[in-house]
């Protein structure tokens, strides 16, 4: 069975999506067990796949039995093996944590919601695992369409934000499709490895240059890289907590993965960094993304929106790191995909718990939360420390690699931006800790008023959150192993 893992990764969630969809009309109580079972199988298969890759090297799976480039093939190497495990585990932890809030917010549409949820996970897993440039586009659209649906089911402004996301997302996906078309017209192939084999004689061609730039712009639109980020904050803020805690950690990170895959596999670093002299411009854009994200986050008086601007800044980290054009920067970017997915999940789950209990996420709703929800806030402290970059949480280590990469590349602007955004994060999060620590101001001035009792979110919401918080520290402690055994092999030898 183990040679079928790559197919199972996508087929199990896909078939279970249809089962959930039918169960939603027949017996609603079946939906949740099906989705948890399916995602558990996916986590199991992805870990099995990563172990196989570590042991034997690249796993290739021919869909339909047709060898590439005739058919579609799945390539699993160290890079996407790692990302697959992250996507699968984030999706599983989040669905368990979100069960209560889904039932609270959509009592009669839970079935369709779970269906969209697992279809989105299918799309993201498919994007990561595929080795075919066009297949990636189809799955991109599945992830995008489900995303529009999930994000639109929120507050009253959600449909408008989601429609804006739809316009931007469609332009992005179409640009990617056009880029693939440019590659197809000059090479005649759609398989990533095959294109990479055919491209070197064409490096000087204008069509290849255009294909690269168009694909990049498309992917940047999808990941909300500055200055194309305008859709992200509103879309994520107005969505329901269950949807935003799935989409915020995963979608942008998967798009960063696609960008790295484009650079490393299809176009190869020689073309991206040596033939084109774009590094500097992109890294400076990343610097602006980080600085603007941090400043805009500082201006917000609303926890969830503040976090979305931090997401924008984090995208700057990863894009900048990948475009530094050296090994340390790329390592930092890949490590940050893992870390950022986990820490964004952590803080968005905290927001989910707060919304579940307090029904709001503006700063004035947060008073007295340390006493009221100690476990949730404890996890929030860990997540915040990780975003700031305090050892031993994992955020410190990826930032460390990024700074080393910036030093090696001699790009001091990027280094300064990283440090600046860490300092701003300190301000941001300590301001929230302060608000949460103090009790709400009472009108009676009386000291005899009893303190508000502890009112923690349900166990199914707190336990996954605490697991994520522990993972944040564990990943930090085992960073060396992850880098030496996985990421080292994910980056081609040519990149020093």
């Amino acid at each position: 069975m183990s040679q079928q893992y790559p197919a199972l990764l996508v087929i199990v969630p896909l078939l279970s999506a249809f089962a959930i969809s039918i169960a939603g009309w027949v017996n609603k109580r079946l939906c949740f067990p099906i989705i948890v079972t399916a995602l558990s199988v996916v986590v199991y298969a992805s870990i099995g796949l990563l172990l196989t890759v570590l042991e034997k090297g690249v796993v290739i799976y021919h869909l339909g039995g047709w060898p590439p480039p005739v058919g579609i093939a799945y390539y699993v190497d160290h890079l996407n093996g790692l990302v697959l495990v992250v996507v699968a585990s984030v999706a599983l932890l989040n669905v368990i944590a979100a069960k209560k809030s889904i039932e609270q917010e959509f009592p009669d549409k839970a079935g369709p919601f779970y269906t969209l949820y697992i279809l989105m996970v299918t799309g993201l897993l498919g994007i990561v695992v595929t080795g075919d440039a066009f297949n990636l586009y189809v799955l991109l659209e599945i992830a995008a369409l489900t995303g529009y649906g999930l994000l639109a089911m929120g507050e009253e402004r959600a449909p408008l934000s989601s429609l804006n996301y739809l316009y931007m997302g469609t332009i992005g996906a179409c640009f990617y499709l056009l880029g693939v078309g440019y590659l197809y017209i000059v090479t005649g192939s759609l398989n990533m490895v095959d294109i990479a084999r055919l491209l070197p004689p064409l490096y000087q061609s204008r069509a290849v240059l255009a294909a690269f730039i168009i694909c990049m712009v498309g992917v940047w639109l999808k990941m909300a890289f500055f200055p194309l980020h305008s859709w992200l904050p509103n879309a994520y803020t107005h969505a329901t907590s269950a949807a935003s805690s799935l989409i915020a950690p995963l979608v942008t990170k998967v798009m960063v993965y696609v960008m790295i895959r484009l650079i490393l596999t299809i176009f190869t670093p020689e073309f991206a960094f040596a033939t084109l002299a774009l590094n500097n411009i992109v890294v400076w854009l990343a610097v602006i993304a980080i600085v603007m994200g941090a400043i805009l986050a500082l201006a917000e008086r609303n926890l969830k929106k503040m976090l979305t601007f931090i997401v924008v800044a984090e995208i700057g980290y990863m894009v900048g790191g990948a475009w530094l054009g050296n090994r340390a920067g790329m390592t930092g970017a890949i490590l940050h995909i893992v870390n950022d997915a986990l820490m964004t999940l952590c803080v968005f789950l905290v927001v989910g718990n707060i919304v579940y209990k307090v029904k709001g996420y503006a700063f004035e709703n947060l008073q007295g939360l340390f006493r009221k929800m100690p476990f949730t806030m404890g996890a929030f402290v860990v997540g915040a420390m990780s975003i700031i970059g305090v050892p031993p949480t994992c955020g410190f280590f990826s930032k460390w690699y990024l700074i080393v990469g910036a030093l090696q590349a001699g790009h001091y602007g990027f280094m300064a931006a990283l440090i600046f955004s860490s300092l701003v994060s300190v301000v941001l999060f300590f301001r929230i800790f302060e608000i949460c620590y103090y009790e709400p101001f009472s009108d009676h001035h009386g000291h005899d008023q009893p303190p508000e009792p502890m009112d923690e979110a349900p166990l199914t919401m707190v336990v996954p959150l605490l697991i994520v918080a522990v993972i944040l520290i564990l990943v930090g402690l085992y960073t060396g192993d992850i880098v030496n055994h996985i990421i080292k092999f994910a980056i081609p030898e040519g990149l020093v």
Partner: protein
Amino acid sequence: MKIIGLIITIITGAFLVYAAADFPAWADPNSPASTYLSPYFIENSMKDTSVPNFVTSLLADYRGFDTMFETTVIFTAGLVCFILLRISGGKEPETSHYRHVLTGVTVTLKKGHKIPESEDFERIDDLWTPPDLIIKTGCRLMIPFIQLFGLYVIAHGHSSPGGGFQGGVILGASIILLAISHDLRTALEKMREKVVAILCPIGVSIYAGTGALCLLLGVNFLDYSALASVLHVDPIAARSHGIFMVEIGVGIAVMTTMIWIYNNISSAGKYNQGL
């Protein structure tokens, strides 16, 4: 915004024109796209799958995995329209209107009152346009032929232009024609919401299930040649049959999704009279 739009458009357009200078000329038989992979498909489609329509064999077999997700995209769109628009249950309106079919008299009932089920009365909305006998009769006559043609297009996709997507759209259009020429309630009587919503995932499951069956028979996902042992034919014919099976699944999924999207959008999720 207009000036910014114009600047972005001109820059992008100029960049694309710059890149197009390196492209092969139109209809050039020696372009890489026409000489690298496509000859394989054209020359081997008959040998590998015994399907004379190369587009069908490429769509449902060589790149069948793409097509499975394409069907999933359709299903997703139907589901998103449903989840965004459908107002389930909802409050009962203050008054409801019934029309006596023979006399044309409209009866207005207050909340809580009901009219006994009978052929003589039909439920109507506040805005009601009288039905046109010519349109109704004409469409009723056409619908069976449209459906027959839809089935032909699905079944004949192997050797002529057509297949599950095209046939499914035609089948869906026949029900939508009924909804337009009569009203949405009449169409819903022929095809209930629950039927549509369950058939749609079943259609996609037929596709994915065919692939999973191959996987259970010990080969890779969607490798239809494994069906030979189930169908008692040679592997090449098995591929042809496998393609037909998934086309049926696609047909069902596309037909029901078209109806599902139309029902939700035309009535804004209220499932009343519709357009």
